[in-house]
């Protein structure tokens, strides 16, 4: 669903248009599930988060002042529902990862000033590769520290703005940018490693 259609749907729901209810439920159930499935790690938890989130959404829908921000508003409720479900073992670093750890891989041979980059030229045209990389990406997101995972899901998967993401997560915009960059670098690194391990011809510059 396009962003504009989603906003229109929110307006219809506020106005009490009868068919808006089921469309809204279908649309956001899938979205919230995708987010909470990765944030919670367990399917049953994710299903519960979906229902709890939608219940709170409908109870409080009258408080949605700006239908343009409906997606961020729903995700804020979903995020809080996920926090309650969170299992204790989730690894959460106290400090941001240093960028040095996310620099391109060092070339073998010991020269610390040299980097390696796999050949990414199969993207986006190669359909098979793209679908393989979707799995690599899913693993990368699922396994990154939670503070990065949530930012990446909201900014790059749900395509919320930096400001909306900051609101959802109770962060300032600089923290969103810092975390997003690290999340992307982590995901990039995993994909790069996969490409090299799977014999994508490497590129020379």
């Amino acid at each position: 669903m396009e962003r504009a259609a989603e906003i229109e749907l929110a307006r219809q729901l506020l106005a009490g248009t009868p068919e808006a209810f089921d469309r809204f439920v279908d649309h956001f159930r899938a979205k919230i599930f995708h987010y909470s499935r990765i944030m919670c790690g367990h399917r049953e938890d994710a299903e519960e988060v979906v229902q709890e989130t939608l219940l709170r959404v409908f109870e409080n829908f009258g408080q949605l002042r700006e239908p343009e921000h409906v997606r961020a508003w729903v995700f804020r409720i979903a995020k809080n529902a996920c926090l309650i479900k969170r299992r204790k073992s989730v690894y959460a670093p106290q400090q941001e990862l240093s960028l040095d750890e996310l620099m391109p891989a060092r070339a073998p041979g010991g020269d610390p000033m040299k980097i390696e980059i796999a050949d990414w030229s199969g993207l986006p045209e190669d359909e098979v590769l793209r679908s393989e990389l979707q799995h690599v990406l899913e693993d990368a997101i699922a396994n990154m520290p939670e503070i990065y995972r949530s930012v990446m899901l909201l900014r790059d998967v749900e395509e919320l703005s930096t400001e909306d993401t900051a609101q959802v997560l109770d962060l300032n915009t600089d923290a969103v940018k810092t975390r997003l960059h690290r999340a992307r670098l982590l995901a990039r690194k995993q994909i790069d490693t996969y490409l090299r391990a799977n014999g994508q011809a490497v590129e020379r510059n």
Partner: protein
Amino acid sequence: MATHRHDENCQRMFALLSEYLDLELPAETCQEMDAHIAGCGPCAAFTASLRKTIELCREYRPQELPDPIARDARQKLLEAYQKMLAGRRS
């Protein structure tokens, strides 16, 4: 295998790449980066790989779907919705 001397400019670039790709940098910084990337093969390759990572995220849709909504779960949501609407009208 792309190898190159990783100089200070490259390092500075590296820290700003996401903001660069999101068009969140001041115009001047952005132009500096354009110029650097145009003349630095490894940074160009790295930037392209980061851009493609973001594109993969945007098209990422998990395989797994939620179970179809149960009748009583839907009913509960509908009641909450109708109650909210009634509250707005009164």
